């Protein structure tokens, strides 16, 4: 296992370095950020001074060398917009995205596994119809529409929930509910399909013939063998959430990394863009390791 982890770490490290180089140079192709930070009437002297303060006058290769040197000490530089360390800015935002993503994916996984398994046990039954309904909703309704409709219904008309913000546990209900729908629909179908295969296998038929009750048939014998593809899809969806849910963050006022990234790209806040990509990439790397470990736990035949 240690050898496996070391190999993965080295491979991921190489990928991260390539990403750093690509993003550093590609982001600077978008142009000079000076015009975005100074008033339109700022003099040429003021613009030159701004470039000097932020090291934008140096040749690109010099800027890159300086950046690499600072990276060794995990110094990603200062945000041009916020005049604070870029890493600090990103980690502040990332904690919100991480919390949203972890809670949502946990709820999605639990609900999808339970409902998908019940749907597979009795194809065409009540649970199967409910599963199909949610899958269709998840695939067809856009996030921003669901979010606005939810706010109009639950906040403005019924007054049950706040419109936005992060203050209390009630503030998290709508954002999580909106984020929940699409991955739930997808994972539900994956669980259903995987479980139909598992539940039609010979050993399950034998268990049912021997009179084993439905619950252990589904959740002990069938589920463990049907989980591998499900774990893969859960991991993929979690990775997407870790990149930040821009729509949910913008509408509900969650200061997450998705909105931070979009704003930083538009404002050419290069240091924050790079720091956000690095932090997110590292988080996804850790998550992939966890998924690989999950494979080994679920299937004893898989060993690293």
């Amino acid at each position, binding site marked *: 296992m240690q050898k496996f982890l070391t190999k993965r770490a080295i491979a991921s490290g190489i990928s991260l370095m390539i990403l750093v180089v690509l993003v550093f140079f590609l982001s600077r192709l978008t142009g000079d950020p000076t015009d975005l930070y100074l008033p*339109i*009437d700022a003099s040429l002297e*003021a613009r030159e001074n701004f470039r000097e303060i932020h090291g934008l006058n140096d040749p690109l290769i010099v800027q890159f060398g300086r950046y690499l040197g600072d990276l060794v000490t995990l110094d990603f530089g200062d945000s041009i917009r916020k*005049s604070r360390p870029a890493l600090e800015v990103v980690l*502040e935002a990332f904690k919100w995205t991480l919390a949203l993503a972890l809670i949502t994916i946990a709820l999605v996984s639990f609900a999808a596994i339970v409902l998908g398994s019940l749907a597979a046990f009795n194809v065409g039954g009540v649970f199967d119809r409910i599963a199909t309904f949610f899958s269709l909703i998840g695939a067809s309704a856009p996030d921003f529409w669901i979010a606005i409709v939810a706010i109009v219904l639950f906040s*403005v008309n019924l007054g049950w929930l706040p419109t*936005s913000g992060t203050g209390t546990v009630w503030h998290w209900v709508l954002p999580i509910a909106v984020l929940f729908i699409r991955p739930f629909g997808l994972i539900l179908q994956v669980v259903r399909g995987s479980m139909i295969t598992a539940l039609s296998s010979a050993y399950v038929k034998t268990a049912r013939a021997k009179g084993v009750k439905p619950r252990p048939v589904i959740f002990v014998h069938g589920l463990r063998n049907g989980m591998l593809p499900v774990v893969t899809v859960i991991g993929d969806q979690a990775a997407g959430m870790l990149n930040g849910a821009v729509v949910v963050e913008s509408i509900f006022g969650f*200061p997450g990394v998705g909105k931070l990234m979009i704003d930083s790209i538009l404002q050419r806040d290069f240091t924050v863009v790079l720091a956000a990509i690095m932090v997110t990439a590292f988080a996804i790397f850790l998550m992939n390791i966890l998924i690989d470990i999950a494979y080994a736990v679920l299937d004893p035949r898989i060993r690293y």
Partner: protein
Amino acid sequence: MRHTTARLMGGVAALVLAAPAWAEGEITIALNEELELVEPCMASQSNIGRVILQNISETLTELDPTNGQLKPRLAESWEEVDADTWRFKLRSGVTFSDGSAFDAADVKHSMERTVSTTISCEIGAKFFGGMKIDVAVVDDTTVEITSDPAQPILPLLMSTLTIVPSETPVEFVQTPVGTGPYVLAEWNAGQNIILTAREGYWGEAPQVTKATYVFRSDDAVRAAMVGTGEADIVPLINQNDATNPATDFSYPNSETTYLRVDNMTAPLNDIRVRKALNLAIDRDAFLGTLIPADATKAVQMVVPTTLGSNPDLQPWPFDPDQAKALVEEARAAGVPVDTEIEMVCRIGNFPNVTEVCEALQQMFADVGLNVKLTMVEVAEWVQLYSKPFAEDRGPRMVMAMHDNNRGDPVFSMYFKYACEGLQSGLCDADLDKMIADATAATGDARGPAWQPVFKKVHEDLVADVFLFHMVGFSRVAEKLDFVPTIATNSELQLAQIKFK
């Protein structure tokens, strides 16, 4: 089962009761974007100004934008010593929120810090660029400020300079200290900023004792927060959300929308073509449809409450027949009127900007002009709007929304119409002299000096296509006694907010 239900209901009740109950004197303000900084020398940015300006940090003088009058604030009086020097008498008995006394040394340091090249202050770049300013301390309550070149509007410029203690480092601060009635109590990045009223303020104690600023980028959500009780003031709502006359106010926001015309490139260098552009537009058709009904047709770069605005100028009429005739006349004279003219508009510049530009393009086509619309994002727009212009450029018009909330044309006219002006599309020696003379005019002569400048731009040169003086919309909870004004575009003085 009963125990479980009871526990569940108790938990719900606890969570509901844990929701904050707003105390007397507390308000919540929903801004459209998060503040990147709380640095006083950046207070010329709208949202930073709404938090900092005259709440935490004060200025020597204060402009009343509704009538253009300059009022005392930290300076009690001022007088012109000579052409390039003004003496300001400072208010005594004023303290900063850290307890230190306000005196002349603080004014000197605030100016030096704002124009320093060590940091990039927006106030310095916007209002004090291109001049050398020296602040001399005469005594603890007197300063003499000398400028080169001479600035007849120096007292007005001092309404932009936020005053900080002389101990403030020359770097952006995270905890601003000022003489204002409030202190920054909390700054939770990404979530909120909380200001609380402080003891020892030199002026009248405000009714608002605590203000919480939250940030919501979605227009509909922001507007809905007042109705649900989550916010009390939303300084900026979308026109489409301004549906409740009890809570929604429109106010002139000191912005003027116009098309900057490149007067140097054919066919736009022909005055007949520029007249045709103006005559082709049915400005009335926009009002109440794509542009708010309360907006007004513009005839000059500044709003009518600005010193020196010319009340005799009239908007161009909608006369497509005359426009066509002018185009044909130009064509007959050899002007290449069929050349494609690029009209550049900025994405998100103002609500319905895309539709407005599409409508303008069609109106120009209807009179025989070949106009191509290009929508660009802000960074590219800045490159096209400001000099240096590309040498090989074709004929171009750029849609812009210019903000002058400082009450004097000097903040607009040089940049937009002088030969060396950064956004100027023309070069006229007579106009340059008129702008220079008006800039140097003082006292009662200043207003009359600017009026002919506006006339020359609008009627004699027909330099640009003026469209509208815009309005903004705010929503204010009914419990508050507060009416947004033109100042709301750039500041929100909590001390002016009362409870009914």
